[in-house]
């Protein structure tokens, strides 16, 4: 064989290789000119929002499906599929008036029957979070004049925060009733009531949504097409935002260090709203059962030893703010009136001295293992920082890496000493915060429960009381006390209030108009210029 043959081989290899056509094919031109190109990462498993509560599914399917209400930036409900609602004086009955002019994407009219079906049959079977909330209802019935009444067994303060598309997407009974939900063929062609319909899904490339021409609000939506592009690499996504191929993205789409650079570009604007509903807090998860960690002085010392501002500046590159307690400043009933832990190594060392933990010749008082969550560079740097920070107070931290399943298993089975974790707060402490601290939710084998094993009857009582009343003053008072108690006990090392600012091209307007931000239905979004 000679050189010529080799070169032929090379050209042949390039030309004849069988790559999927989707690589070459770009999505066909949009039908109208008002197009939004954005990103979804990673590619969702399905768009059937009732079956899957993962973030990518929610991001896209929230344009196709809708809930009874939406929430504004102050977490007040606004009409969506429900035009009006009322709460009885005793807080036990919630009555929603459902719009009668809504059509499913296949033309069938939406009725109260769909709402009842969703609430009593579909969601309890498929969505654990909905199941928990809807399970508090004694009955869910339709009444005259297109209304649905939820009758609670006991008052539940945050009940109205459970009816947007993420917690209560209304699903078509005529397609799902009496079927096996998970294997229903309609799952590939999601039918909803939202301002956008699924036009095409090219796996590995993009998801194309088109305007719902029969949307129940005239003129809306203003956008004709939305393309969710699937770009697996952070650097590629950053490039796409930079060169305008994509006009909308979120902070988690790019590496934190790139975000600042992109936000400063003339064609992009940073939107610091739209995450009021999720408002997560990232914490150092401390297993309260482990020796020394069970002593709250140790936990307080750890809080004093970590410089949360340094973490926000250098590990999160300024995206986020220092957390001071269990409730995010954007969640309802946040209170400042509690003990705070400044970065103070002297105080930290003093606490450990008081515990009687003396340092050996190597300066080490005790050792802990820290499991590094396998979710990216941020957690790797955070773990390294924590190890250095705790070394300053004589604690030797051994880093342990694992994979996602190992992490989930270790965390839910309490097989850890230190790690990191965060959960969404869903707007109200009863919905997203209580589950982390109440004794009843210490369930082995389940994630997002009280995995740290903290138990305080005073806290339990207050959480229970606060959720079963609708009196705002009383709830505020109770949650203030909860925060004070938790700030003293420090069951977890709260570090960062995570933020998910969006990056929006200057040609877009009114994209983020609700507390769920990019997970809103975009009915108000416009493309200008």
């Amino acid at each position: 064989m000679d050189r010529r043959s080799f070169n032929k081989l090379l050209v042949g290899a390039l030309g004849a290789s069988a790559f999927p056509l989707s690589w070459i094919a770009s999505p066909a031109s949009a039908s109208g000119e008002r197009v939004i190109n954005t990103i979804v990462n990673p590619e969702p498993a399905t768009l059937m929002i009732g079956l899957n509560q993962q973030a990518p599914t929610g991001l896209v399917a929230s344009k196709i499906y809708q809930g009874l209400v939406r929430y504004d930036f102050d977490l007040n409900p606004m009409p969506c599929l429900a035009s009006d609602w009322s709460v009885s004086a005793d807080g036990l009955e919630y009555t929603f008036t459902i719009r009668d002019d809504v059509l499913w994407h296949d033309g069938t009219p939406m009725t109260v029957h769909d709402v009842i079906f969703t609430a009593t049959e579909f969601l309890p079977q498929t969505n654990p979070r909905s199941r928990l909330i809807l399970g508090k209802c004694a009955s869910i019935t339709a009444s005259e004049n297109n209304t649905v009444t939820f009758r609670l067994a006991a008052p539940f303060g945050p009940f109205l925060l459970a009816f947007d598309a993420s917690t209560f997407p209304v699903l078509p009974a005529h397609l799902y009733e009496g079927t096996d939900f998970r294997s229903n063929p309609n799952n590939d062609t999601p039918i909803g009531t939202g301002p956008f319909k699924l036009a095409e899904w090219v796996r590995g490339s993009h998801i194309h949504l088109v305007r719902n021409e029969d949307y129940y609000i005239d003129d809306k939506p203003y956008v004709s097409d939305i393309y969710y592009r699937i770009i697996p690499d952070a650097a590629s996504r950053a490039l796409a935002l930079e060169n305008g191929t994509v006009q909308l993205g979120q902070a988690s789409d790019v590496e934190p260090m790139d975000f600042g650079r992109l936000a400063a570009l003339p064609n992009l604007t940073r939107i610091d709203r739209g995450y009021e509903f999720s408002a997560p807090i990232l914490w150092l998860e401390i297993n309260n059962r482990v020796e020394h960690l069970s002593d709250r002085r140790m936990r307080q010392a750890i809080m004093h030893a970590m410089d949360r501002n340094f973490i926000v500046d250098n590990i999160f590159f300024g995206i986020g703010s220092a957390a001071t307690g269990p409730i995010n400043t954007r969640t309802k009933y946040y209170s400042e009136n509690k003990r705070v832990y400044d970065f103070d190594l002297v105080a930290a060392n003093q606490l450990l001295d008081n515990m009687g933990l003396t340092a050996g010749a190597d300066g080490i008082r005790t050792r802990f293992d820290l499991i590094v969550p396998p979710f990216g560079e941020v957690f790797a740097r955070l773990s390294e920082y924590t190890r250095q920070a705790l070394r300053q107070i004589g604690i030797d931290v051994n880093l342990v890496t694992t994979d996602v399943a190992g992490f989930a298993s270790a965390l839910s089975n309490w097989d850890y000493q230190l790690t990191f974790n965060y959960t969404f707060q869903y707007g109200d402490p009863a919905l997203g915060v209580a589950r982390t601290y109440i004794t009843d939710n210490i369930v082995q084998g389940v994630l997002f429960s009280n995995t740290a094993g903290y138990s305080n009857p005073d806290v339990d009582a207050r959480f229970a009381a606060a959720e079963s009343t609708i009196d705002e003053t009383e709830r505020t008072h109770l949650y203030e006390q909860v925060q004070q108690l938790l700030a003293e006990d420090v069951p977890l090392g709260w570090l960062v209030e995570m933020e998910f600012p969006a990056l929006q091209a200057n040609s877009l307007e009114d994209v983020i108009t609700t507390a769920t931000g990019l997970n809103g239905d975009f009915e108000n979004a416009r493309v200008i210029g």
Partner: protein
Amino acid sequence: MKATLSIALRWLVKAILFVFVLASLNFLLIQLVPGDPALVFAGSSGAADQQMINQIRAEFHLDRPVWAQYIDYILRTARFDLGTSFQHGRPVWDMIAERLGATLLLTGSAWGLSIAVGVALGLVSMRYVGRWPDMLVSSLALFLYAAPSFWLGLIFVLVFSIWLGWLPAFGVGTIGVEHSMLGAVLDKLRHLILPALTLATFYIAIYARLMRGGLLAVAQLDHIKTARAKGVPQIRIVTHHMIRGAILPVVTYLGFHATTLISGAVLVETVFAWPGLGRLTFDAILQRNYPLLMGILLVTSVLVILLNALTDLLLRAVDPRTGVSA
């Protein structure tokens, strides 16, 4: 002909046995892993409770005893059914097949590139033996042989993409720009150059050295000296006599090279975000995606066996004297 048939048959039997043992071992390996897939799937949905976990277990047969899962796996594998990936709700084979092309493209290009450039550099070395081009090629080969491929890839990105802006840094095509057929191929070529080059560098170094050594040895042979004395033009001597004589070590190495391409692809695909099997492997491990992992291990090993067989045949074609026993 009969000889080739019997060899092919023996190879086939051996390959099937190999795959069976491989499949069994894969299964065993992954069973030893701590961590519960049902838990992960439930957890990544954003909320988790026991009912949901049980549902997932039942759906994906995780509630059956291990030996039943094993027999099920072997039988399905024989039917080319590699199971479903729970994380994506899609057949494993589909996920592998759609990435296979990208990896084959990358590894094939790197293979061809390394042979072409390596042989060319070897020729240069021989032509200017002892003088500065030879020294340059030899030094280059030394450095390329020692440099880690993933680091070299990053340096290429730094120099050619970030600093010079000549070539794209990642992915397989420019997003959002519509291309004609030719334009699309050219665009893909632009994206292919850096990753293929990165994957090829190690072997460029090897082939350059091998060719140089081979050519120099062949140059001393009698029939070459005779041809030169007879006045045959230098070009013809080189292409018709010397390369053929010197190529044997290179071709012998080709088989070994082919089998290590997949491993190399994992690193290079990660650096360049190339949407191939290597990248898929890494993602699958992060997600503890058992069916996908097993599928990838199997497919890549079969690929290696196939490549081995192909290069074996190639070796025979080039030099029938080499009887490599099956």
